[in-house]
Every structure is written in C-alpha cells, then in structure tokens.
C-alpha cells in the first residue's frame, strides 16, 4: 500500500503497488483479504501500468471495509486478482456515456482514464450520489474532458433525482449510444429498462462472493440463456454484463 486518501466522508481510496494489478482491465476487480472468513471484492478506480500502481475506492460499510480503511501506509495486502471480465473498449466512432451511482463511479473512472484519449467525441459522465459530499471523482472526470452531469437524491448538488433522468435525455439524443453503467442494483435495473437491454449497454454488477474465481457458484445473477433463464457468475462471466445478457424484473 503506497497511498491513501479520503475522497468523501466514509470513503477511502487506497493505492497499492502491483504491476500485475495495474495491468487489469477496467471493470475487473480485486479480491482482498480483510477481516472475516471471506475476501472482499473491490473494483479498481485507477490503473497505472507506468508506475505499476492500482487504486481501489470503497465505502466503509462493515467489518471488512473498516479494517481495510484502517490499514497503515506500507501495509502488505493479500489480494487475488485481477479477476473477472472488465468493460469492453467502446467503439470510438460512436458516442458513449458512463453512468455511475455511488461507489459504482470509481470503476467507470478507471475505464474513462484509459479510453478518453481514443475518443473522437467528448464523452459524457453521469454521476449520481445521495448528497453533495458523496459525489465521487467529479473533478477527475472533468480533467479528462468529459461532459459531467451530477445528480443527487436530495438535490444538494446538480440535478435532484437519480442518474436515470439525464441518461434518458442522453439516450434520446444518442439512441444507439454505448452505455457503461455501475451502481446499485435498482439503478442498473432502471438503466437496463430505459436502454432496451442492448448488447452495447454494459453494466458492472455486485453479488455476494465466495471464491471469486468461478469455483463455488456463489455469485450468480439471472441471465438470459438460450434455453430460458440461467445463472451466471458475477466473478467470472461478469462483473460486466451486457444488458442483453441479463434478466431484470
């Protein structure tokens, strides 16, 4: 662990030095030993192959994240990764948009950092949070040159409401636009609904995990199989799925 920041109340970003992790695809995750009997899955917020550093930005919600947040500089972390399937690179000739809610924003930022130079048109980032102090990485997205729309549940910053409003407007203008979304399940469900669950709408999902490598079949979500609904592993077939692959209610 080489660096530590507190980007928002109750949120910590940790940098670790590991060339292997730094080579991850955005959307992939790290499976981290903390306290407790299971590892904790956390996505990468920054991936820097040059320095060999990777960062993870997480919210402190329970024993594991609290333990991780309290690690001191120089601590050696036991991390399995990079794991899972990351975001596919967007087709640079067509518009794309990032839609993140809460701690769903960091993995999209890792993606944006890698893709933005290749983008022909200015990409859009729609960032949602509960309240002003919890809007993550806004400045960083602006520095990448993104058009940034902010929504907060309480209206304390940007538009009042969820990311779905701005996304609907963006989709109205860019009906075939590529969408990359990460956030709470309810938000992803809505993203799936208004984007028509297309094969170029990508969503990074969360699920309780055991192994993280595909062995235990714990982390499943319901997929749109050839012979009806089937279960897919978030740790292996995901965490990034296309809207087309998933079944939401």
């Amino acid at each position, binding site marked *: 662990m080489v660096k530590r920041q507190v980007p928002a109340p109750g949120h910590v970003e940790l940098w670790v030095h590991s060339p292997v992790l730094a080579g991850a695809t955005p959307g992939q995750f790290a499976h981290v*030993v903390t306290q*407790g*009997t*299971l*590892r904790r899955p956390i996505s990468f917020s920054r991936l820097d192959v040059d320095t060999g550093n990777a960062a993870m930005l997480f919210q402190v919600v329970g024993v594991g994240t609290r333990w991780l947040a309290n690690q001191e500089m120089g601590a050696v972390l*036991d991390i*399995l990764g990079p794991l899972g399937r990351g975001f596919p690179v967007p087709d640079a000739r067509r518009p794309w948009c990032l839609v993140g809610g809460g701690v769903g924003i960091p993995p999209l930022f890792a993606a944006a950092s890698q893709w933005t130079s290749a983008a022909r048109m200015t990409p859009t980032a729609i960032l949602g949070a509960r309240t002003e102090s919890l809007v993550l990485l806004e400045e960083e997205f602006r520095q990448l040159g993104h058009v940034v729309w902010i929504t907060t549940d309480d209206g304390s910053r940007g538009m009042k409401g969820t990311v779905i409003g701005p996304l609907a407007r963006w989709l109205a203008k860019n009906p075939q636009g590529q969408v990359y979304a990460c956030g709470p399940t309810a938000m992803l469900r809505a993203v799936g609904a208004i984007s028509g669950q297309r094969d170029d709408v990508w969503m990074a999902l969360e*699920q*309780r*995990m*055991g*192994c*993280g*490598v*595909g*062995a*235990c*079949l*714990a*982390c*499943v*979500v319901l997929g749109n199989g050839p012979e009806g609904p*089937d*279960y897919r592993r978030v740790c*292996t077939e995901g965490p990034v799925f296309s809207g087309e692959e998933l079944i939401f209610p």
Partner: protein
Amino acid sequence: MNLAVSLPRGLKLKNPIIAASGTFGFGPEYASFVDMSVLGGISVKGLSPDPWPGNPPPRVWETPMGILNSIGLQNHGVEVFCQQDLPFLRETDTRVVANIIGHTVDEYRQVAARLSREPGIDALEVNISCPNIKEGGMSFGQNPDQAAQVMAAVRFETDLPVMVKISPNTTYPVEIAEAVEDAGADMISAINTLVGMAIDVKHRRPALGGVTGGLSGPAIKPIALRIVYEVAQTVKIPVVGMGGISSTMDVVEFLMAGAAAVMVGTITFQYPRRMQEIVAELPEVITELGFDCLQDVVGSALPGRSNASSMMEAEYE
C-alpha cells in the same frame, strides 16, 4: 517424509490433503493460483444426471468463523462434466474424486454408472445430504436405511473406490456410517455442512436466497472432529475427515481423531494456497510432535491408543 496414503481398492494419494467438493470447482478455476499436482486429490462439485439450476442468490453469507452457502447443488450434469471438465482433470497429476448427488436412489445410480465408464476418475464420493424427493424431502443422509439404499445402488454399478459423505444434521451419524459400510462403502467422508441460517437485519428477511444454508469453516471444526472420532471408532473402513480445517495443526487434529486423509474446503476461498502450504508443512509438524511417519499420527488420540485417561488421572485423580 513420505506422506502417501493407501486407501481401499488401490486408491493411492501422494498426501492426505484433498480439495473438498464444491469449494474447488472442477479444477481449472483455481489452476492459475494453485499447483494442483501438489494436492493429494480433488473432489469435484456434486454431479447429478441432469443439470440442476441451484438456488436464487444471495448464495453465501459470512458468519462468525464460518460461512453459510445455499448454492443448491447447481451443476451442469454428469454428461457435460464428462465432456467438458474431465479432459482437463485427466491431465492433472492428482487423484480425481467425483462427488455425486441425486434426488432419488436411481439418480445416484445413474451418475455412478455413467462415471464408471470414464477413465480418469479415481474414486466416487456419494453426497447423501440431498433431499429425498420421493420420501418428502428429508435428506438421504438423515436416515440409515435410505443412506444404505443409495450406497447399495452405487455399489451395484461401480468397482471404483466409493466413499459416502456423512451429514451432521442427524441424531445418528455413527449409525449412518455403519449402515453404508454394510452396504458396501469403501470409505466414509465426514462431514458435510450443518444447516444454518442468517437474518439480513437491514432488509428484515433471511439473508440467503435459499433461506437456510450449509454452515462450513472453522466454526464447525469441533463438531466435525467429534463425528470423525466417533465414526472412526465404529467402522472398519477408513475415514476422510473435514470441516473447518484451516491449518496444518487442524489437519493433525483430524488425523489424531482417526482420519486417514482430510479434505479442505472453505479456507481455500480466503487462502487459495493454504492446501499447498499444509502439504509443505506437514512433515515438519509431524516430526516435531514426535511421530516417525504419517501413519502413526492417524488415530493416535483414539481410546486405547491415546494416553487420554491415564494422563488425565495422573493429573487430578
């Protein structure tokens, strides 16, 4: 030190450490993190005649020193296993134990029959903790007669070494072990998970999609040791012990309680290399405890062989 273990029907393990069913997939999943050729064996995820879909998520939940799982025995069926997974396993230099499941006695029989025709399988492990659909859903493993019926059906189909995996969710683990021994089992593996549950307080509902789940991990080690100790004293066939093993000392506890080999499950999720580390440490640990060979450790705390009562009395009687 030679760690090799000889089990019935010519089953030879290079060491007593086997990956437990359901925690190690079909091999390739962990292959980039673990050197599989170091393991004594691997028991694959339970196999049924047809694919089973499994339970709705969430399927795991953390508990004090344990986990609950309600995977619901999801698997893609024995046929897909033979075609898709077995080729990889045949290439690995470790023993392959095929774990079999069924909703009826006949389903167990079918899987056993199918697997017996395939090269590359070294043993069968019959997981009797499945609901017996014809008998109202209580598991085969909770009733000695039904457990014996499953074993007899499997025995009819195969000459492979067969172990039956004992459920701890019964008044009679020992009686069940005896019943399956009489029905032709070559070994007992013990134990499977204990039925437990957790509440998702925030959402005011059972935490697992399957409502109840199987408890595994260090929390259950004392229960597993007790059952291994009791079964090892009763049956004449070898016992493969498991339940909460997370260290080399834990392995020694199981061996002393009478296990000829062990399986390691939940700890792999946290430390995928732990089994390898145990294999590496075992010779030194055994030597330090004053044993000359692995075989001498097995059963050394059992009555008769242990210095239990005598030392106890020496201290306060």
